[in-house]
């Protein structure tokens, strides 16, 4: 019994001794405070050693505005120069601005604005990059006041933006940041040397203005084998739902921003939210789309394409197709026919042919071809009726009537030499419709080419038919 007691006593002592040794394994080679200090120092060095600065792809936490590019040059004297080209930077810089309601085109400005303030790295919720004096490029997004130029009252919340960012990760050219208050993730990307800030911001604005148009709002995004209907790129707020789902109940809105070479989403897209969630794509996280050589936006295993082909868009009631009368916009065969028709107009009206267009007339409740002389002495412009062209793949055919039009059209069919010849010329051909615009998503210009004669083509501008 005595031996057992002593054995237990020694075992207990040995256990306590082992428990108190300082041989715990080190998971990190330095204490947390030193590691924090190192990250701050290294990040500071990284940021200041970029002679042409950085590009912050900045998003606020609200759901009513797109993201913005803010260019930054970090100086070792704790100053930071920032530049931006958005309406709020303009407003903060004392330039006023137009209302952004229903006119998102004004949200990025043609002029670049700039300001200087201070920055530093601090220890907070991790290593934090803080911009601790006000800069007109960044801090308007954190002001608590009612946002200027909007119809709603945002007093107390403002844009819900951040100016303090936790450094989440970094490499030589990218720093991953998280807004300390909003927890919105953003990227800070190093700008190449020699890049002109003004030109770069203009390029981003060009992406925004000229890639999409509210005139052609609907696109289709294909991810693997799944298709999603997307719209609203022109406002930066992209509505998306899986094809076949109910748009009203299944639409998710993604916040985006234009880049010089594509678009970035605020949050990765991992499948449209549907009522039952069945269409979610596991493991998918699309966040950035870049323009390919085809002008389309691509991401790994994903592409965004126009929902309608040019041939489908051409006859839609939403558009008016105005024929360009310039010789350089026509093939020689078509221009010869057009010139003969213009001669007939001149002979009849003693005026020049000013407008030739195909569209659906709400007043006449008919589709057709209308022509207008330059002084427009007719009370109603002549219109020759036709059934709405029905596309066959990329091709369409016109069936302009030789006997039926509006009142002025009927008169001209009777008394205007050359009109029947032109109608016959148009009707006799099958026209292949292709986009002639710089962006495939925004076919504001189309070319119609005789499938049997490449030299016979004409160009139309698509305008809103309101």
């Amino acid at each position, binding site marked *: 019994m005595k031996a057992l007691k002593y054995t237990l006593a020694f075992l207990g*002592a040995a256990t306590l001794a082992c428990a108190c040794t300082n041989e715990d394994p080190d998971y990190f080679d330095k204490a947390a*405070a030193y590691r924090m200090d190192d990250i701050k120092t290294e990040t500071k060095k990284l940021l200041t050693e970029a002679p042409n600065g950085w590009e912050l792809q900045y998003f606020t936490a609200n759901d009513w505005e797109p993201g913005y590019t803010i260019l930054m040059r970090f100086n070792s004297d*704790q100053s930071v120069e920032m530049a931006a080209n958005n309406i709020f930077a303009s407003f903060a810089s004392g330039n006023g601005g137009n209302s952004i309601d229903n006119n998102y085109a004004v949200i990025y400005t043609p002029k670049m604005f700039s300001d200087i303030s*201070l920055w530093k790295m601090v220890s907070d919720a991790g290593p934090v990059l803080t*911009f*601790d*004096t*006000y800069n007109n490029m960044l801090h308007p997004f954190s002001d608590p006041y009612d946002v200027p130029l909007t119809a709603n009252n945002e007093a107390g919340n403002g844009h819900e933006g951040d100016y303090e960012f936790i450094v989440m990760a970094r490499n030589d050219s990218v720093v991953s940041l998280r807004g300390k208050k909003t927890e919105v993730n953003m990227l800070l990307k190093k700008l190449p040397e020699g890049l002109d800030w003004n030109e770069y911001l203009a390029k981003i604005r060009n992406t925004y203005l000229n890639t999409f148009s509210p005139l052609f709002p609907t696109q289709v995004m294909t991810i693997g084998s799944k298709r999603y209907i997307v719209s609203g790129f022109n406002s930066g707020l992209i509505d998306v739902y899986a094809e076949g789902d109910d748009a009203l109940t299944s639409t998710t809105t993604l916040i985006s921003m234009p880049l010089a070479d594509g678009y970035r989403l605020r949050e990765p897209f991992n499948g449209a939210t549907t009522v039952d969630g069945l269409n979610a794509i596991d493991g998918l996280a699309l966040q950035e789309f870049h323009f390919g050589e085809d002008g389309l936006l691509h991401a790994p295993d994903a592409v965004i394409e126009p929902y309608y082909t040019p041939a489908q868009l051409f006859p839609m009631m939403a558009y008016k197709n105005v024929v360009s009368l310039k010789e350089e916009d026509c093939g020689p065969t078509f221009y010869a026919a057009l010139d003969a028709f213009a001669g007939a107009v001149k002979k009849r009206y003693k005026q020049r042919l000013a407008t030739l267009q195909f569209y659906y007339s709400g007043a006449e409740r008919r589709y057709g071809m209308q022509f207008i002389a330059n002084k427009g002495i007719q009370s109603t412009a002549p219109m020759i009726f036709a059934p709405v062209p029905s596309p066959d793949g990329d091709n369409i055919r016109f069936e302009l009537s030789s006997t039926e039009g509006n009142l002025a059209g009927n008169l001209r069919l009777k008394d205007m030499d050359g009109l029947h010849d032109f109608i016959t010329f148009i009707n006799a051909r099958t026209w292949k419709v292709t986009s002639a615009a710089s962006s495939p998503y925004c076919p504001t210009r189309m070319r119609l080419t005789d499938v049997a004669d490449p030299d016979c083509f004409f160009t139309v501008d698509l305008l809103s038919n309101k």
Partner: protein
Amino acid sequence: MKRNIFNILAAATLAAGALALTACSEDDLDPRSVLDDNLSEGNIDPDGYCYAFDQWLEDNFNRPYNMEFIYRTEFKSTDQNYNLVPPTIEKAEELAVLTRYLWYDVYGKLQGEDFLRTYGPKIIHLIGSSGVNPANGTEILGLAEGGLKVSLYKVNVLDYTQPDEMNALYFLTMHHEFTHILHQTKTYPKEFNLINSANYQPTNWQDRMASMCASMGFVSSYASGQSREDFAETCANYITFTPDGLDLILWMADRGWFKAPDGNNIANFSFPMKDQTFCYYYYASEKNRSLDRRTYCGQFYCPRDHCNYITDLCATLDADGQVQSQQSSGGKKIMNRVEDIEAFFQSLRDKGYELYPVEDTDNQDGKANILQKISIARDWYASAFGLNLDALREEVQYRQTHIDMAELMTPILGAQAAQAKYGPKE
């Protein structure tokens, strides 16, 4: 039993010995400090972008008063329920020199520098915006925390050419918050709390018109919230009100006010306001008299606390309080001197109108209450701190009207740059 205890003690002694031996081994101190560089340095970077300003703050606030003047906003030390932004460098510099000139130098001159070394805040924190409450739209313009820290908000709208606005936004706040620090050190007489004890309204003070508050005995709407705010407001307003401003608040306090029914906005009125209050009425015709259709005048207008005006608006209201018409310039003319206001009323009398004062129904002699409160504050300043409140007021009044920004900014910007930016323009 004794033996058992001995055995247990022996085992425990052995265990403790082993523990002591191991616990004391190899615990060397690391030569590096874990303190944040930004805090441990405590010195100023001569190559820093704001070196001149930082050095000026060091020489004028931090070192002489053993404090921190923080213009690079530390969001983590603010109320994170609010969305706040930092000040611009330019506005921070301007407010810093004005704080020195209108607050620290005033007390330094009257009480010596030790007074603010003893009672002054240990931290002054500048914040660019106000703290806006999304629920009711109220704004925080200043905070004093435990006698240690004063936060001044809305720095980014500072306009040194507008003394009234600066008073309302900053200097009133400075003296208000400093009063809090002082009374947290030496409490003010309890009799102050009893003067308007039945009239405090802690939750909805912002919905009260300052004119009606004055009639009860408060120098501002905010003062009517609770007694300690009333005390701080009374002191701060007394110190910063111009003589005309003080006359006006006492004039307002000396009468009754009629409040038009809610939602009864007056069409085309120059200043869109939710509420309207008036202190006189007359009958524009015998017909109106027979219908008790009163034309109210002496309309109170207050764009923000501490900025009180009377307008020339005359509005005719039906007996049910609905606006029938408005006269004069529709409120475009605003007056903040009692003699101008009285002259306006005389002009109405000269037109043949008999003016009737609005009945004062709050059962308080507002003017007497305010004067009593000022008297208590005056005595408290003298007895608790040996400070002459009227001398303090006089010094502040002088400085408020003699601000030479070019001279104040010279130590930071240099004489040439300060003169170019703030000097008189040709």
